[in-house]
């Protein structure tokens, strides 16, 4: 299981200024109050989760890239064995539209 980074009690906090829309601020305040958190705590947690999701997505995409690259076996496609042959194959197909 993953832990939420950047939101530990030991980490030093710094004061910062952000701009929110009125409706978003209201929604955050409602949610934060319900869960007994301050606005800052709520936003720190939201930002940490966002970073975590980005990192997870990047890991998934890295895995996808590893699966995709090399998935075409040139033994099945002598017509794709180099750049010249590939560009010729594509061009021939496109010329059929004429």
């Amino acid at each position, binding site marked *: 299981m993953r832990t939420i980074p950047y939101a530990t009690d030991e980490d030093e906090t710094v004061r910062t200024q952000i701009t929110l829309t009125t409706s978003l601020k209201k929604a955050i305040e409602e949610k934060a109050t319900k869960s007994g958190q301050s606005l800052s705590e709520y936003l720190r947690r939201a930002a940490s989760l966002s970073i975590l999701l980005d990192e997870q997505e990047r890991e998934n995409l890295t895995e996808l890239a590893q*699966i995709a690259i090399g998935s075409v076996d040139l033994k099945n*496609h002598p017509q*794709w064995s180099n*750049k010249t042959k590939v560009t010729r194959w594509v061009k021939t197909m*496109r010329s059929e539209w004429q």
Partner: protein
Amino acid sequence: MAMKLVLPDTNILILALSNQKPYSSFLSSWIIDKQLIFSSVVVAEFLSGATDEEEKVFLSLLKPFPIIPVDLTVAQLGAYYRKKYLTQKTKLMLPDCLIAASCKVTKAALATADPKDFPIKEIEVLHLDSKVT
């Protein structure tokens, strides 16, 4: 600032997916950085040459990325490019025009192994062979 979208031409996809350098490294970066966008023309061309197994992997590659259909906007713009360049005595192939139109409407750069087929000034064409790392 968001990273630039890249639309790979069929030739780039084939070269990259068959692990031919430097195209495979470029494609890998575009996947990981979520920069990819596909043209339905390119998808059809690739699938018409792929085996069943290759099709399966390719379809999983498409999942996280947008696929641009040949809708009315793309069709009109593609036809405009074809006519415009024909009057300048440059005969462009219609699939090339449709791919270029997809790039234009999505503001994506085109990655192709054959840049001379895309003399269209309205789009950005990446010259990958001169970017070998």
